């Protein structure tokens, strides 16, 4: 019976379909549409639930959109699987808290530092995409430095304030009610702002796609949502590797505040095996990572969803530092074997390998590819005792390429796109 419930949640996800008539052209002025939605966003349960589920789903996972009816006819006579803890802390049911707290830059000093780092000595009119500016301290500083800013704010309460800021700067500020970290939700649900597709957003902003080989079309600045940093990171990586969402428009450069703990993890390699994980490999393969600045949590303000300044309760979180890092996608990311066409196999390989990080690589290979594992190891010039945590990110990439380019076998991978669909 518990399964039944799970299925029901699935159904919700499935039943919401992309509205046929909903396209960018229909929007005309998206802001008016936003206005309407703001009006009716009066705390209806349904919508909130949906948002939340997007928040979850836009993580690393590709969930099922097969209608429940078409799935294997497993009746509720079977025990169902328990979530085994993988990489995020969030499991689909736990995430229930009403107010999603966010961090905002509230100190002018921090804002100044950031502007200095981001702008250097340039005076030219650079375009910044600021995610969840909140009270707009950094926005103001950026504008003052002469940059152009697009503010994507997911909290309605801040929007009037931001707009008034825009009035003084002669069109250099555009405010959009939009949640950057939830762009392009993977379930094709009804999109109600602040959830939107990147196409809608970029078309509205009039930003053209740029080829991958060109430079960054824009720089995004933001603070990863403190509650689910990892989910947000996974989503960004998925978008990056599949060249979708914002990355469809070119190599967007991200400048993010991230907790020091996570930061150390994504920059880890076999030299700090305790922190090394799938995310580290994926981040390092995809982007150049630069640590720009470190700032104590104390310098930030925390607001609950309705714009109230929240007290910071946990001592722990106060003592933590936030790192400001720059993620620049590599120009040559897709020039080799790894492409948006097969990246999911690479993802799967890493997720599986890091499930048992201490195990030997050869044991994992048996579950990854039907090709003789010894043969593969010989090709990548590793001995048979090599462990997962001994492999550098480049080694993984090499491993992937070796298998993907293997000539002798018709069947290279055991992974199957739809494996996820057939299971309970």
């Amino acid at each position, binding site marked *: *019976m*518990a399964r039944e419930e799970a299925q029901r949640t699935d*159904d919700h996800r499935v*039943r*919401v379909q992309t509205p*046929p008539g909903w396209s960018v052209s229909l929007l005309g002025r998206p802001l008016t549409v936003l206005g*309407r939605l703001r009006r*009716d966003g009066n705390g209806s349960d349904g919508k909130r*639930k949906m948002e939340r589920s997007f928040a979850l789903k836009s993580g690393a996972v590709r*969930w*099922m959109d097969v209608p429940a009816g*078409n799935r*294997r*006819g*497993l009746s*509720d*006579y*079977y*025990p*169902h*699987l*328990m*979530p*085994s803890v*993988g990489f*995020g802390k*969030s*499991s689909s049911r736990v995430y229930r808290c009403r107010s999603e707290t966010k961090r905002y830059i509230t100190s002018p000093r921090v804002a100044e530092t950031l502007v200095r780092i981001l702008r250097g000595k340039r005076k030219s009119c650079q375009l910044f995409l600021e995610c969840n500016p909140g009270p707009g301290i950094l926005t103001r500083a950026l504008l003052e430095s002469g940059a152009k800013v697009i503010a994507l704010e997911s909290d309605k309460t801040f929007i009037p304030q931001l707009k008034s800021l825009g009035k003084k700067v002669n069109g250099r500020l555009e405010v959009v009610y939009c949640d950057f970290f939830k762009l392009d939700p993977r379930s094709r649900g*009804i999109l*109600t702002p602040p959830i939107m597709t990147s196409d809608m957003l970029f078309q509205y902003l009039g930003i053209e796609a740029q*080829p991958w080989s060109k430079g960054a079309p824009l720089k995004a600045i933001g603070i990863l949502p403190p509650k689910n940093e990892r989910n947000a990171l996974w989503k960004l990586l998925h978008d990056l590797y*599949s*060249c979708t969402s914002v990355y*469809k428009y070119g190599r967007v450069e991200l400048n993010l505040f991230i907790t020091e703990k996570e930061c150390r993890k994504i920059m880890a390699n076999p030299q700090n095996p305790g922190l090394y994980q799938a995310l580290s490999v994926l981040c390092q393969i995809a982007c150049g990572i630069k640590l720009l600045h470190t700032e104590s949590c104390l310098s930030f303000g925390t607001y609950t969803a309705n714009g109230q300044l929240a007290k910071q309760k946990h001592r722990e979180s106060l003592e933590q530092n936030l790192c400001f890092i720059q993620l620049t996608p590599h120009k040559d990311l*897709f020039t080799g074997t790894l*492409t*948006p*066409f*097969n990246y999911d196999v690479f993802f799967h390989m890493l*997720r*599986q390998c890091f499930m048992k990080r201490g195990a030997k690589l050869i044991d994992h290979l048996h*579950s*990854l590819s*039907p090709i*003789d594992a010894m043969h593969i190891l010989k090709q990548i010039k590793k001995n048979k005792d090599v462990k997962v945590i001994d492999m550098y990110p480049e080694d993984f990439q090499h491993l992937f390429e070796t298998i993907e380019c293997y000539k*002798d*076998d*018709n*069947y290279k991978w*055991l*992974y*199957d*796109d*739809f*494996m*996820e*669909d*057939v*299971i*309970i």
Partner: protein
Amino acid sequence: MSAVRWGRGAAGFGRALWPAGAPGLLAEEGALGGVWGRKRSSTASPCEQDRRKDWGHAELLEVLKARVRQLQAEGVAEVTVKRVAKRVAVARAPEAGGAQPPRQAQAGAEGAAPMLSSRWAQKLDDDQRLMERRKQRLEGKLQKHVEKVAWQKQLRSEPRLLSRKLASQLQHWEQGAPRSPWEEQLAQLLQEAPQGWSGEAAAAPADRGPESRLEGQRQRLLSFFECCLLTGNLPLAHHLLVTHHSKSQQQRLLTLSMYNMVMLGWARQGSFKELMYVFFMLKDAGLAPDLRSYAAALQCMGRLDQDAGTIRRCLKQMAQDGLQLQGLFTAVPLSAEERAELLRAVRKAKPAFTPPRPPVPPPQVNTSPLLREIYAKDPTVSYPRLHLSLKELQGLFRQQLRVEMATTVTVESVEKVPLLTKEVLHARKTLAGLRTRWRTALYRELQETKESEAHAAREGRLSLFPYLCLLSEKEIVGLLLQTLQALPAQGESLLFLAHELGLRVFKRKQLRNEVQELEQRYSKYLHLLASDTQVAEPCLPRQHWEALGAPEAPHEQPWPVSVVVQLGKQLAEVLVRAAQMPSSLAAPRSPGTLIPVLYHVYSFRSFRQIGILKPHPAFTQLLETAAERTLTFESTDVPMLCPPLPWTSPHSGAFLLSPTKMMRSVEGSQQHQLLLERCPPAELHGALDALTQLGNCAWRVNGRILDLVLELFTDKGCPRLGVPAPPSEAPRPPEGRQAPKGCLLPEVSPAEKAEMRRELARRLKVAREMQSLRADALYRLSLAQHLRHRVFWLPHNMDFRGRTYPCSPHFNHLGSDLARALLEFAQGRPLGPHGLNWLKIHLVNLTGLKKRESLQARRDYADELMEDILDSADRPMTGRKWWMEADEPWQALACCMEVAQAVRAPDPTAYVSHFPVHQDGSCNGLQHYAALGRDSVGAASVNLLPLDLPQDVYSEVAAQVEVFRRQDAEQGVRVAQVLEGFISRKVVKQTVMTVVYGVTRYGGRLQIEKRLREIHDFPQDFVWEASHYLVRQVFNSLQEMFSGTRSIQRWLTESARLISHTGSAVEWVTPLGIPVIQPYHRDSKVMIKGGLQSLTFSSSVDTSQKPNTLKQKNGFPPNFIHSLDSSHMMLTALHCYRKGLTFVSVHDCFWTHAADVAVMNQVCREQFVRLHSQPILHNLSRFLIKRFCSDPRTSKSIWVSRLMDTLLSVPKAGTFNLEQVKHSTYFFS
């Protein structure tokens, strides 16, 4: 031979055997070593043999025992010989006895001193020689015998008693045995009052958590013991009992029934010493022996032909314990042979004793007022008979018996025959070769696994060894090969696979084996059903069956899910290890090494990691190429070929050999079964008879429809008509999962590649979906083809609310339009004066047109369309294809054909029709609510009132919503204005329909939103707001129309919430007397470690967990209504049967012959009135108060008092006059 010599030598051990100073282990080894050395190795035997004979010389023992029996008959030195036998057994066992080194083995040192009469000594020798020869033959096959013997040697049999007093008694007993007859000790022991020695266990009324954990472990232990007994691994069971008993921590797990079970095992073997050990342990654990314990002891005494004095003492003690002698024969399940032994023992003490007649329970009569008429004796009633003769039916029985004995059915697939090219033939040959190889490999793996499990058991762990012995190796290997064959290309989750495998083993081991007895009884039973026989007085099938013999033995408890999964996982691992294929299949160029066929891969869903077993793509490819045209089904997944056994108890009925549960339930839950068993048998008669009756309907395949469907199926399919297309019609991904050409070229931009990927994924997904639909249809059609030209039966059982379902999953009348159209009644009935009219009306009903027209109008409409109907019947695929536009096209077509045949018959009234005509309840759930609450307005809208035209509740709700909308629109509510002209029946239908079954506003909104999106000219911007608005209005309208309904729903919900808060699951009894309990508890997690991967799953049926309040309360209203609609259906079924009608149902859709529709409708209405004339809600309230509020211990709880208040305020009923239903034509139509 030496063993015998030794045994013979020991014949006189009465005196010589027990020297005061017990020699140590070493001496014993020394003594035995020389004598036993070689022989010992020869006693081990291959597995089939040693299943029954694990413990050393069991085989020898048997011979000896047989001889003893023979000798007894000859009256020679019986006691002595018997002791020899016993000693031989015992001497083997306790060599590693631990705490108390055994002394008796000393016997071996006694030289040969033949004191026996030479006549039978000669016989023994002969036997011995014979046996020796047999063993030598077996020896060749042996591999690991030495080790085996070694572990057998270590099995412990002597208890380590925790109570000093008992221990000294035991010692005294052992030592003193020769002098004072050791049997007396039993009596002494028995007189000891059970002492609550095991202080911690009894004193600490452990809190819920640990207690529930214990419960789970107890279940596992019990099923382990049970399995050991079944497979003849009794010494192993004893060993485990002893090891558990000797550790106080583990002793807490042991229950009386476990001791009893092991004792019974020894009693069957006539091993008194071991039985006594167990008795000591039982006492030691502070338990009081019950009837079963005494039955075991006495049985053993009977077998050993104990002297009367001992038995008398034993009986006396039993009386002192307050146990009735009669009870031994009535309350303890015994086989005939056991009964005889038991009686022999009792008769020794009380020669005049006659056992009570084997339970001929007083004919129990169901007391439910609803069923009074059904069980009223009336010699004039004519129950329907089948159209087949006794002889035909007997033939059918034999066919079915063969099928069930084979356990699987092989059915030819209806897929197109492939061209037998060289390729195909080659693939088939390769496959056959591989299978032979796998079979050998599987045997080997299985044996190795068994060995390691046996090893684990020896170490006192609850291993899977006895479970693995349940089926023969051949059977298990067959099962595994079948699994491999059926594994889908994309793999199967390991948990699912393991569960499935475990269950199959469980089901197969349950097969009963008294085939002959069954055949005789069944043959007599057929006299009731056959067309050419007579029975003395008309009675129901169950009554007839019960009159023919004793009731069935009680069924076995199901295994805990963890055992099922663990066993299945073990088997799956065997399969993974054994199945290998040459790598050349996968990569033609690579050298001929072996690679696995199955891979254990992981998949990620959300943050779960799921283990999957996936076949190598090359193997899938091979299967595809070989295109073998057989499908294998479990015999219980296929309809029966003879009338099912009538249901006589919650666990006996339906299939001939495979036990089936009357109430299906979530796997692992036992609460329903317990509840049913506790229920007085007569209370269940209604359900038993209704299920029997539904299963007794004979079916056949509608051949013409099948032909048409097959034609489409083997061609290109037709998704519009529900015939899935073959994979060749799917949008093919270019080259498997490979990148399409050009995808990897550098000039293609990453974004384009991403696009290609999406396209590929989409295609793969469509293909996968089509494949699963196709497979489903393939099963159904292949079975239909297999059963064409046969008569078959669909045995039924029910879910926990009493809703009935056919047992066979693939092919039954419950499925889609296509599935239903394939079936018709095997028995025909002449149409009679009105039959043709009903056919026509049914045809119009199937088209979905004219729903709101009178019956007359529908009939006229059919007459108008007669030309189209005849055209459809004659040229279904080439003509005007009128039928294809119907709501239920295939059934409509079948009906067209029937109508055509009838109208063309010379005399339509005499035309024999096999076609089932349905009558549907109009929103049956609401009908029950309206009747419960006596809502006048609601009753009218769901056709409880006789009106000229059928009412349509959906339209009425829509109209009511429209009224509200107009009001709002006038007041300027924007969304109400936007909705003008969009509120239709269709928009609200699904929500209204599901509201009865507890749909929430949230779910309702989603349903409505979906509908609104389908309307193209609806401004889509407003969908969300409009659906939100509409769902509110629908609920308001329902509130307005069915005021009673909402208050009843609320009352039920609130009661359930409070009951759940008091810590119990909601229970009630349906008006027909079926006890219902909601199996919703908080999840408990089960984890199985080791092997390929750890499996973790959660189960919501663990009764030791607190109830899940949310589910209990949301589930109660719909479940309660379902229990009412099932009662209504069963009542209708039973009364129809009494009137001689054929009747089947799909929940609220009732089927019968066209000629009988009017009668069925009348019965249906009458029974609805009868049902609701009962004070249903008051009865419920009374029952719940008694069940949940009468416990004085909890009466102070705040929840209980609140519950009491709620339950006492039963919702008030309205003013609707129920009798009016009797005249409502459109109640079911």
